[in-house]
């Protein structure tokens, strides 16, 4: 009966050791690549979602702007133009004093009309937010809320507005618009406050109303697709959106964006 000598044992042992090492190397390379592919896939998906959200936000901002223009044309500019027409139609050259008064009045109305058209044309630009900045755009929204006469809206900025990436600004602005829309449509609030506070590494935007509030958990489970959409949009720009609401005690929505 032959026995395995020490030398052969060493050869076999080292060969088995090499087998283990090579197996480890092969698995490492294989799984490293697999993980890389998975990560790349996720990144690509995120990029696609971001681009889609951005496109959707731009579209929704345009829609909102068109609605605003339509309302302004009908309720404001149309009214002023009608008054101008009435003034001009009722001018009687025989009555110099009254005519002078009407012409002065018409001049004022025309000046007002030009001013309103100018401010309306500003809101028409597609790159308005990048031109005027997020803070100014939000302030304009607040002004429009006040103009309706149904709300008392306030806007406060604490700190210096940081430089935020243009695409992120658009998505943030759209989130704010959507929150305002919800407050106007569903909250039955009379006061709406918005506060932007900027610290060294955090941009914080808080919106608060004194409306009827709602049960957040129930809303999220049920017909809260809009709220989920807000949260999902915020997460795409790496921000955290938090909703606090109690039935009868208003709603507070905060967006925290790390800088």
């Amino acid at each position, binding site marked *: 009966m032959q026995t*395995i*000598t020490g*030398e*052969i044992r060493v*050869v076999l042992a*080292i*060969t088995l050791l090499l*087998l283990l090492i090579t197996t480890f190397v092969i698995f490492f390379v294989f799984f490293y690549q*697999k993980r890389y592919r998975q990560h790349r896939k996720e990144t690509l998906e995120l990029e696609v979602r971001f681009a889609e959200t951005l496109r959707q936000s731009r579209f929704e901002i345009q829609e909102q702007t068109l609605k605003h223009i339509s309302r302004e044309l009908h309720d404001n500019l149309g009214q002023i133009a009608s008054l101008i027409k009435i003034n001009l139609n009722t001018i009687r050259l025989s009555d110099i004093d009254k005519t002078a008064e009407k012409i002065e009045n018409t001049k004022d109305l025309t000046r007002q009309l030009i001013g309103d058209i100018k401010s309306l044309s500003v809101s028409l630009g597609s790159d308005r937010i990048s031109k005027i900045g997020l803070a100014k755009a939000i302030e304009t929204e607040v002004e429009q809320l006040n103009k309706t006469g149904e709300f008392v809206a306030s806007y406060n900025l604490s700190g210096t507005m940081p430089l935020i990436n243009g695409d992120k600004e658009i998505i943030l602005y759209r989130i704010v618009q959507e929150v305002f829309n919800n407050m106007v449509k569903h909250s039955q609030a009379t006061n709406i406050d918005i506060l932007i506070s900027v610290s060294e590494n955090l941009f914080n935007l808080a919106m608060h109303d004194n409306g009827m509030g709602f049960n957040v958990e129930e809303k999220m489970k049920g017909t809260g697709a809009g709220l989920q959409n807000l949260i999902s949009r915020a997460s795409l720009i790496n921000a955290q959106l938090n909703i606090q609401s109690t039935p009868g005690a208003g709603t507070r929505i905060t967006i925290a964006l790390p800088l």
Partner: protein
Amino acid sequence: MIEIILIKLLNYLDTIPLLILLLVAKNNKALRGSFILYYIIIQLFFNLSANILNELGWKNLYLYHLNCLFSFYALSLFYFQLFNTKQLSRLIAAVAVIFTAIFFFNIYKWESVMVFNSNTFGVASFILCAYALYYYLQLYKNPQPVNLAKSSNFWFNTGIFSYYTISFFIFLTYHKLTEEKAPLLRIVWKLHNFIFLIMCIYFFIGILCKRSRVK
């Protein structure tokens, strides 16, 4: 009877899988002109010849010398094609020339064609392991977006890496062990054949993959 067949089968583990690989590769048009295919043909030719001569009781060790040289050329050309950069191509060509010089010097000075060529097998294994590891390193440094499981080059490289790394110590010591007529030496060569089978399995997976764009 079954035991004898099994032992015979183990002896032919370096031949039968190659035949199967060739049959499978025949249907894969993408493999035409591939140096892996040449490598398989070289291995099949020399291993089959060596086994037949062994059955006849004739000396066959000079065939292992030739096998080592031509296999090294085929695999060098495979990596030459795979790396495809000017610097590496030059390096591979230079290494092949140096290896040829070592090969003949070894026959002349240390291991004649009548003994097993541990030195040249050892050197060839070392170089091929280095090429294979370099390929892995490239994959690590520049991960590819394609699925490696579908990359034939990855599996071919894995086969080469497994066979030449695991067999390295066997190659290196086999000459000494045969000279000392170590008992149960055949176990070592059977283990080698088993490792060869592992390489063939990786090659088999690689052949089943479509032509890979991974470089």
